[in-house]
């Protein structure tokens, strides 16, 4: 049995107290944070402590007892799989919730259920019918009052169109602002997560789990997941010295349905680095033919962007800059808290061979100097002769250093000489190679011929013989030159990476080091790279459904034609207003016909009479000079001459137009009798004014002067225009539709009919054929073609039906869209609730649970204290009350 420490048990009790105290503290912390948002319940990691090891010759009776409990750490109870599912679902909920909210706001404008008179006749819907009511009245009794009533109805209708369009535009702008705020929130979250990463890492390096910071980070990630679909990854990062810390990476969740798109997994957070999301005002024009796998650098497919001149480039700054109408998002560079950009380096080492070093880098290999001497056979020697070589005495003879016979052998003589000379010449090693003596320099390098070592010699000594030495080949050696490497070369690659080539030497070897440096770059996201509320807001701002262009479907989103946001409903309303205005403008304009349907050749009457007939006559307002202001013009824009001068009225003949410049008008007037010779503009205007006064019809003489208009005699005029201060019908839409200026001032009225009977000899003052056309137009089935509004629209038929049906259809589409989003939202929200409840089940604090823990730890604490008392009593017995027998 091994030794038992007397006071070991105290340690056991103390550790028990510590462990219980820790447990109580953690329990207290849990209870305190029961209402803290995002708090994850904590628990202590407690292990049984055992000191010492097993002895090699341990006795079977030697039973180890543990030394108590150790608290090795405090951790969180969290299920990462639930987090992943929760965040995936959160992005769905974010998307559907925001989309539904947007659609509900559109519905608050367009949906007329329950609005209007009679408990829900609608507003715009009812106003269309009120207009038809006015027309019906005008049809039954065409007079000025009913014309005014019709105009008032039309004004109210146009006003409603504009109000709805204005509200939709306000909604769009508000949504745009909300989008900006969302972006700010997302960027704040990204910054928070990045900074929390750094704090957590710092804590980890100091051995702290930073649980509270992790809770906050999880809360931030949860928030981020509502804005976009993300993928969260945890990995271990080597920070040197064998230390590894946890690294958090957040990417976009690969949600783009197009498999060729890779930007949908762009990195948002990479440990200490984070990006920011923005919506640039301009974006470089992309090359639709770009292929990232194109290897031919000169091919069109190798370029990402198109320049303003149509050329290609990979530099976004050189590219043509287009308005970012699609609110395309851009991810900024990954930077750390101090704004340092992320870099990723990978190096490859290549060992350089000698051949490569010599051939490519100018290395010269060193060579030693070698001098050779041929040794001949010794002659003339006698047995016993002593000769001196290298300062040593050499005896020739059978008992000497070399036999006489051998002396005749040059090789043996050479070996003898080499043996004795070696070491006598500084810097050289002397060896024999057959009959050749070889002087080899000890070091590589070139030898000056003048410094060539002296050749072999010997001193005959007691003999008279000879050893002949003949100088042979001589090599003076080569001095070694190390390789010369080029400076470090940095190459920018088309994909944005850099390649750095450098050289290094290690262990006598040379290496070529190729380092690839990845730089963080801005990433322009594709249309469908994110989900979540941010995407929903984008779609509310951009999606135009059938009004999406072919280009958008081909290059931005192949499903664009089926997605409907605010622009779809704006354009639907625009198309309705445009169709409405066009149809009624068309109905209210035509040429004068007789009772047989033939064009009337000419008509004569005062301007007022002709106007009452519905003939189109306007008052002029010149843009240049104003020489004809207040005079009447025909529908073709020519000024109207009085019949006082007919049939050759000078003004009629001159054909001066309201759009003529002063110079043009004067040239025409001068040719028809105006004061000649005017040169300055003022003189010309004065002459033109005189000319107009003499020959033109204005308000003063409109009632009395007869004028004659010739075929084709234009009748009516536009009822609706794009501004109420003019008659311009170009680009009429819901936001600008107005009662035309001419109608509003009475120059144009609803034309009841285009016929003039028997040259005006028969009146038909209450005839209403044209009003009937207008009346039936209300219920006429018309085709609404999106291409009428957006020429390149992908849709060809938005709807076919009456104006009211079209409006009703738009609301039905909106209602169905809301229902679909609502169902999706309910489904995903229910999932989210389930997941949240599950997460709460794992990570949430339960009061009963903690109460139990509290009781448990408290009991453990008491027990440990009791143990200490028991041990104390036991040891007291041992120390103070043992071995006193007989005392």
């Amino acid at each position, binding site marked *: 049995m091994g030794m038992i420490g007397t006071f070991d048990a105290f340690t056991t009790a103390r550790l028990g107290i510590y462990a219980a105290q820790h447990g109580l503290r953690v329990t207290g912390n849990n209870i305190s944070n029961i209402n803290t948002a995002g708090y994850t319940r904590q628990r202590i990691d407690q292990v049984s402590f055992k000191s010492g090891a097993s002895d090699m010759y341990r006795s079977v009776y030697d039973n180890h007892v543990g030394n108590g409990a150790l608290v090795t750490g405090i951790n969180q109870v969290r299920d990462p799989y639930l987090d992943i599912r929760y965040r995936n679902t959160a992005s769905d909920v974010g998307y559907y919730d925001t989309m539904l909210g947007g659609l509900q706001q559109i519905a608050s404008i367009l949906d007329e259920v329950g609005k209007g008179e009679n408990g829900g006749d609608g507003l715009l819907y009812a106003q269309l019918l009120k207009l038809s009511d006015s027309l*019906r009245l005008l049809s039954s009794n065409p*007079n000025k009052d009913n014309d005014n009533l019709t105009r008032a109805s039309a004004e109210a209708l146009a006003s409603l169109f504009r109000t709805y369009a204005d509200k939709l535009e306000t909604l769009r702008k508000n949504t745009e602002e909300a989008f900006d705020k969302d972006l700010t929130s997302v960027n704040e979250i990204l910054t928070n997560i990045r900074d929390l990463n750094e704090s957590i890492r710092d804590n980890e390096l100091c051995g702290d789990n930073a649980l509270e910071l992790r809770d906050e980070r999880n809360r931030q990630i949860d928030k981020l997941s509502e804005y976009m679909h993300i993928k969260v990854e945890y990995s271990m990062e080597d920070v040197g010295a064998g230390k590894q810390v946890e690294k958090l990476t957040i990417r976009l969740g690969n949600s783009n349905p197009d498999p060729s798109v890779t930007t949908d997994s762009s990195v948002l957070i990479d440990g200490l680095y984070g990006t920011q999301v923005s919506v640039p005002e301009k974006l470089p024009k992309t090359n639709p033919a770009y292929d990232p796998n194109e290897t031919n650098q000169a091919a069109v497919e190798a370029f990402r962007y198109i320049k303003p001149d149509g050329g290609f480039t990979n530099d976004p700054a050189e590219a043509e800059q287009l308005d970012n109408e699609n609110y395309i998002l851009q991810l900024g560079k990954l930077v750390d808290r101090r704004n340092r950009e992320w870099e990723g380096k990978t190096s490859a080492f290549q060992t350089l061979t000698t051949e490569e070093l010599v051939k490519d880098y100018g290395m010269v290999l060193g060579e030693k100097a070698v001098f050779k001497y041929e040794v001949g056979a010794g002659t003339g020697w006698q047995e016993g002769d002593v000769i001196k070589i290298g300062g040593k005495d050499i005896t020739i003879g059978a008992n000497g250093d070399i036999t006489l016979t051998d002396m005749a052998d040059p090789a043996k003589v050479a070996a003898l000489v080499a043996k004795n000379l070696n070491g006598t010449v500084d810097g050289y090693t002397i060896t024999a190679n057959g009959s050749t003596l070889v002087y080899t320099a000890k070091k590589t390098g070139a030898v000056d011929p003048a410094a060539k070592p002296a050749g072999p010699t010997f001193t005959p000594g007691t003999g008279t013989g000879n050893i002949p030495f003949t100088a042979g080949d001589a090599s003076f050696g080569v001095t070694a030159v190390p390789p010369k490497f080029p400076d470090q070369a940095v190459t920018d690659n088309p994909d944005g990476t850099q390649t750095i080539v450098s050289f290094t030497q290690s262990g006598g070897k040379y290496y070529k080091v190729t380092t690839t440096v990845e730089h963080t770059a801005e990433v322009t996201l594709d249309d469908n790279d994110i989900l979540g509320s941010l995407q929903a807001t984008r779609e509310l701002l951009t999606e135009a459904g059938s009004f999406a262009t072919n280009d958008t479907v081909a290059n931005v989103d192949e499903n664009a034609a089926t997605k409907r946001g605010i622009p779809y409903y704006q354009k639907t309303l625009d198309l309705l207003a445009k169709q409405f205005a066009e149809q009624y403008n068309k109905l209210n304009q035509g040429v004068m016909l007789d009772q047989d349907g033939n064009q009337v050749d000419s008509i004569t009457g005062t301007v007022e009479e002709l106007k009452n007939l519905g003939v189109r006559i306007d008052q002029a307002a010149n843009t240049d000079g104003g020489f004809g202001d207040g005079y009447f013009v025909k529908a073709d824009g020519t000024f109207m001459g009085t019949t006082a001068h007919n049939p050759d009225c000078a003004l009629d003949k001159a054909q001066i137009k309201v759009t003529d410049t002063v110079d043009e008008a004067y040239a025409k007037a001068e040719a028809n009798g105006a004061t000649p010779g005017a040169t300055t503009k003022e003189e010309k205007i004065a002459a033109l004014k005189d000319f107009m006064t003499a020959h033109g019809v204005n308000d003063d003489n409109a009632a009395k002067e007869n004028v004659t208009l010739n075929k084709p005699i234009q009748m009516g005029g536009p009822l609706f225009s794009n501004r109420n201060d003019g008659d311009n019908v170009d680009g009429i839409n819901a936001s600008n539709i107005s009662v035309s200026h001419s109608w509003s001032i009475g120059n144009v009225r609803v034309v009841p009919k285009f016929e003039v009977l*028997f040259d005006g000899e028969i*009146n038909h*003052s*209450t005839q209403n054929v044209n009003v009937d056309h207008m009346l039936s137009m209300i219920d006429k089935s018309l085709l609404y073609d999106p291409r009428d509004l957006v020429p390149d629209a992908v849709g060809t038929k938005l709807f076919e039906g009456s104006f009211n049906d079209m409006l009703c*259809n738009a609301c039905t589409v909106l209602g169905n869209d809301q229902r679909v989003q609502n169902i999706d939202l309910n489904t995903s929200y229910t999932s989210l609730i389930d997941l949240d409840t599950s997460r709460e089940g794992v990570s949430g604090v339960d*009061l009963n649970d903690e109460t*139990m823990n509290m009781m448990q730890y408290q009991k453990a604490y008491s027990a440990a204290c009791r143990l200490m008392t028991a041990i104390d009593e036991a040891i007291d017995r041992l120390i103070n009350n043992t071995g006193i027998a007989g005392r």
Partner: protein
Amino acid sequence: MIRATTGGVLKSYRRNLMNSFIARNKAQDTMLSQRNFNSYAEDPAAAARAFKLRKARMTVESQYSICTDTQKKYETGWTCLEGIDKLIDTKNGEAMNTLKGTTLKMLNDPTGDAREQLTKALDQMSETIIQNLNQKYGENFIFAGADGHNVPFEIKDNKLYYRGVPVDAAVPKVFDADKNGAQVTLNANGEVDPAGDRILLATGAETISKDAYDKAVQDYQNDPTGTPPPDVLCDPPVPPATTGAPHLFTDKDGNEYYILKDGTQSMTQDEIDTATKDAEKLKYLMNEKQFVDIGLGFQENEDGKLIETSAYNAALNGLTFIGYGLDADGDPKNIYSLVQKMKEIGAKVKDGENWSDADYNEFYGLVQKLEKASSEFKTEFTNMGAGTQKLKNNSDLLEENFYNLQEQYADIEDVDMADAITSFVWAQYCYNAALKVGNSVLSESLMDYLK
């Protein structure tokens, strides 16, 4: 769920409480708004259907207004025509004060004791008829066709004009001398003269064969006390003769004849053109229509022309009732013009004088024609009554339709109050229960049992 934590239970409770509150509010909204749905999103199909029905109701409402207005116009017109009818036939049951009575009195009074007075009475009555036809409904003249803003009938020089066109206008029939289109031109003296500017009309132009004329001449030569030969159209005299020779005509069949001078009428080409144009105008006016939408379907065909059966022609043309143009005898078909002609005959002789047989016969003939015109008036008058009734029936139909449509969309939109109240009470009950549960959720935990 492996664990039911305090936080989880509270969260769950909050969500359920919110759901309960939302359900309660929804039920409250339904009950207060009394509507099954308050947006398209709640029931797009029902909302679309309800709007269509509301549109139909608004349209019917508008059509009803037009229909009743038209009906009132017809009723006013009918009253005017009733006055005329009484003037023609049975005024206050006293036939003598009517056109018919007066003309009969004149016929039965060959001595003409009160002819002048009766003639004046005829004149006044005919003017009253015209005044009745110039009545207005609202601001429009009732019987003005499609020219409601202008007085339709005008009398100038005892001639009646409808919208500026003489009501007796007819295309003059030019005498066809050879039955192949050859005109006969007369000079100012009524002689057959190629250089003359007047063209002989077929109306009143009677012929006599050369044989008959020659025989009459021969008979008169044989017996100068006998009937002289009739005056026929002659050539201009060749001086020194003062009368020209009778102009012998030959038709394409070779028949030779003379034209009796009495009763011939002639016109200049301009007069013929004017009369022709007037006749065309009358023809146009009689076909003129003014349609209104009274709920008959009001629709245009593919060419943009109104399908006439889908609308109601509300134009009332006064001439439809009192006639227009000339008959085969060249007499007017118009009541006013007939009376004027009678008045002229009556004025030929003074009171107490007998009128000639010819005048009497002519007057008698005109009385016959007035009878016919009156008969046609009565037919049109009856037709108009039928038209008024049709409008009334249509108004009734529209009114019924209006209420039907109201009921139909009410069925879709309006909530069943019993159901709505029950739903609300149930939702309120659930909400109260949820609140109560909340009280116990928050109060109990193991902590409460610690000593």
